[in-house]
């Protein structure tokens, strides 16, 4: 699974993207975030306030119940501030 991080999530996690293989029981966005938070202090800090994190799967905004699969691109970022 390809993970991408933006803005302060990227800074706290310490990288902009990586490829990870979550365990087989990670099947939703919510389960993925919970698993990522266990990977280290940077991940835990980035995901401490789950409500501040937005998620896109294959470049579409999704909610925490959305399914995730091994070949998905999953991006984590704060609420957007363009324009």
């Amino acid at each position, binding site marked *: 699974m390809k993970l991408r991080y*933006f803005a302060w999530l990227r800074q706290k996690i310490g990288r902009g993207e990586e490829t990870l293989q979550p365990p087989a029981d990670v099947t939703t966005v919510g389960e993925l975030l919970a698993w990522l938070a266990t990977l280290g202090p940077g991940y835990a800090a980035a995901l401490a306030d789950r409500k501040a994190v937005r998620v*896109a799967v294959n*470049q579409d905004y999704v909610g925490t119940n959305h399914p995730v699969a091994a070949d998905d691109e999953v991006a984590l970022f704060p*609420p957007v*501030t363009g324009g």
Partner: protein
Amino acid sequence: MVRVQQEDFDVGAEIARLTEGNRAVGGLTIFVGLVRDMAGDHSIDAMALEHYPGMTEKKLAEIEAEAQARWPLEASLIVHRYGRLEPGDRIVLVACASPHRDAAFDACRFLIDWLKTEAPFWKLEETEAGAHWVDARDSDDTAKKRWLAD
């Protein structure tokens, strides 16, 4: 048409190209967003705009398609910059051309309102006290919601 780029844009050249040869256009509206030198009570030295390459273009194209579906537009354009910008620099251009002005005004407002809450951009402000990420504003969500009732 949608473009995401680091370099500045020339508003005059962009709108000339947008409507060139199209005699059906009777009204053209533009919105240009600039970097302010103040945010609340603190001054800004610069702003770094980060985005999600690929998803940004996809979202902007979707927003533009929505505007094209809602209003009779002859042409539309969104140009959004990323990278480091200073106060006074142009950030974003939205232009809408239509046979009549009402559609051009409404579509332009719709596009900038939706873009602010849908396009994956993040602003990092550089100030004397250090750099910090700009929080999303409730007023932007409110501005978007007024188009949902239509």
